[in-house]
């Protein structure tokens, strides 16, 4: 029965063209979060494989979940594939199946040529031994014969920049040095398929540049890449194709730029309430008030219509409505914006006072607008801290006004939206004299 099942699958897997170095076909993998049960299932799997019983790997046992489900793609010689997705999306699992470390539970993987995993920087490094000895051990583990290691030894040391420490034990190295040595060993294997898992962040800036150069060189020589990274920039720089994994499923496969855009938008928008874009605060009584109370916050377009989510590159006016009990002169609107995706960076700090705009607030229900002709922020979720002040006196503070910026103009590979216009100017019909 099994042979009948296997046969068509193998024929199906034959790649259509000879350049395919990696074909992943309907691969699934299940895991179990409970350690005790997971170990027991492991023993169970070993036992059924040993006696040759089918282990029904396509069915979930109690407590298991699909870490990967029906993932298929192909990679050709010299192509670079990025894997993006949140933590736990199954990226590393996929890499480990491709490198043959663990067996898929369904489907199959075809690999042609030598696979070098950059998951394993410094695998087999023994801290007591010297850098020299460790280079030999590490590169042997990665599958290089001794005479090849001898031939590449100098290049590795040169690349890792550890000439003077090569005969010192690795435990005396700084973490950066050890990481550089590990990276240098791995990229000098010259594999057919290179699997990279979150390791491009080793070393200082100079070394990073060198790593990228080396990767580019390998790619020119025909090495195919699979790169896992949380940093969209390194994926964009290295990969032409990308896969977007989410909870073990392949959501999208295609050109890196569009995949990254989709990933970033999902990353930012997930978890935010379906906001109307307006934040309304309860009005305060005379006793509670300090003189100026913020009553509502929102974005508006240039026609004064409410914007549920401002779009990158489009006009957006931040509207702050207040109850002003007594007229205030020379008020200052303070707006501090933090990006909620990524590393909680403060992205903007704008105050009317630093723009030398002194706001005079008449008494009554007043709206203050900060008019932005272009929304410069990238798509994402942000939090604004908004306060109304006068000198050092603070009237009212809203700690967090959450808003979402939609994708408008294309800002991939940009940190912010730069308004611009393009033009050609002919200075004369004649060429500039030589």
């Amino acid at each position: 029965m099994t042979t009948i099942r296997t046969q068509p699958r193998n024929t199906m897997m034959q790649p259509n063209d000879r350049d395919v170095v990696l074909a992943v076909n309907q691969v699934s993998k299940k895991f179990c979060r409970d350690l005790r049960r997971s170990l027991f299932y492991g023993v169970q799997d070993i036992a059924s494989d040993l006696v040759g019983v089918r282990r029904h790997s396509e069915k979930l046992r109690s407590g298991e979940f699909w870490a990967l489900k029906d993932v298929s793609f192909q990679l050709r010689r010299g192509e670079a594939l990025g894997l993006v997705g949140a933590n736990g999306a199954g990226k590393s699992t996929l890499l480990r199946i491709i490198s043959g470390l663990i067996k898929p539970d369904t489907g199959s993987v075809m690999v042609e040529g030598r696979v070098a995993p950059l998951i394993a920087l410094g695998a087999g490094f023994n801290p007591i031994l010297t850098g020299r000895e460790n280079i030999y051990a590490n590169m042997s583990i990665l599958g290089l014969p001794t005479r090849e290691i001898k031939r590449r030894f100098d290049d590795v040391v040169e690349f890792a920049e550890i000439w003077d420490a090569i005969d010192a034990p690795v435990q005396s190295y700084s973490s950066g040095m050890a990481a550089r040595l590990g990276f240098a060993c791995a990229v000098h294997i010259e594999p057919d398929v290179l699997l990279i898992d979150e390791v491009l962040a080793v070393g200082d800036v100079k070394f990073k540049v060198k790593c990228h150069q080396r990767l580019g060189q390998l790619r020119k020589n025909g090495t195919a890449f699979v790169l896992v990274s949380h940093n969209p920039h390194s994926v964009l720089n290295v990969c032409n194709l990308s896969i977007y994994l989410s909870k073990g499923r392949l959501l999208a496969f295609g050109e890196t730029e569009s995949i990254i855009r989709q990933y970033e938008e999902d990353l930012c928008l997930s978890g935010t309430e379906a906001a109307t874009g307006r934040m309304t605060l309860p009005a305060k009584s005379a006793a509670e008030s300090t003189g100026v109370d913020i009553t509502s916050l929102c974005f508006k377009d240039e026609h004064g219509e409410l914007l549920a989510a401002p779009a990158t590159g489009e006009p957006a006016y931040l509207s702050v409505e207040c109850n002003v009990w007594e007229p205030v002169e020379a008020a200052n609107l303070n707006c501090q914006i933090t990006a909620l995706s990524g590393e909680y960076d403060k992205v903007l700090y704008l105050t009317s006072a630093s723009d030398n705009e002194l706001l005079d607030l008449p008494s009554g229900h007043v709206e203050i607008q900060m008019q932005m002709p272009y929304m410069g922020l990238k798509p994402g979720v942000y939090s604004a801290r908004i306060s109304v002040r006068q000198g050092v006196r603070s009237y009212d503070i809203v700690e967090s006004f959450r808003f979402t910026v939609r994708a408008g103009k294309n800002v991939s590979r940009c940190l912010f939206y730069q308004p611009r216009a393009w033009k050609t100017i002919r200075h004369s019909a004649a060429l500039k004299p030589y």
Partner: protein
Amino acid sequence: MPPRVYYTPESYLKQPFKLLRDMGRDLLASRELAWRLMIRDISAQYRQSFLGLTWAFLPPILMAAGFTLAGQAQVFSVGATDIPYPAYVMFGTSLWQTFTEAINGPVQAVTQAKPMLARVNFPREAIILAKVGEVFFNFAIKLILIVGLFIYFQIPVQWTVILTPVPLIHLVLLGTLAGTLLSPLGALYQDVSKGLASLLGLWLFITPVVYPVPTEGLFGLLVRFNPVTPLLVTLRELATSSVLTQAQEFWIVSILTWVGLFLTWVAFRIAMPYVIERVSS
């Protein structure tokens, strides 16, 4: 042109010929790596040790001292031995130590190499081979002690001594077999290494290391059915008396060892991906 590899969920046993081919290929491919790992382990071991080589000598000497003193004090009575009792104990202990190293080797190797195993797909045979090599290296050092022993006690050596490598190799292989069989489980459960330590204590007790082979009673039966007994006894007899009392048992155990080693190897290959899946990262 590097080979094309397929990874599928099927058991390797479904394609026995491919399995055999892969085993052969990996064994060949792992020679160099095994050598490299062995050198790495041995040099790390001696570099981080003050007493260094002394550790190969100390346990047999201490053991012999203890048992000789106990024997002289009539705490227990040992039967007559072919060679002086202290030499008997030291020789026996050195061999027993080699056997326990062979058992512990694979279990330790797999446990220690977990991070490496979880990240790089190298021929897994290499770490076992490296440990076997280390066992032989350590034995070579103990050999200095044994040779010194024979000279000091002026023990006559028979010509059959040149055959001793055969039972020695079988002794190490038997240990490797047991260790390799346990190693995948040992990577999953700590019980294995703990249980192994207690088991080896008991096993030493029913192996004629510090006493000559008993012939009577339940104890005699236990010792007789202990697979280590014929290997150890034959080795000792080849070196000192050249009269083999357990030739038949020796060959039975040896053949079982070779067959068992092959089956263990298959089981090890089948088990490793599942172990790696459960322990990794």
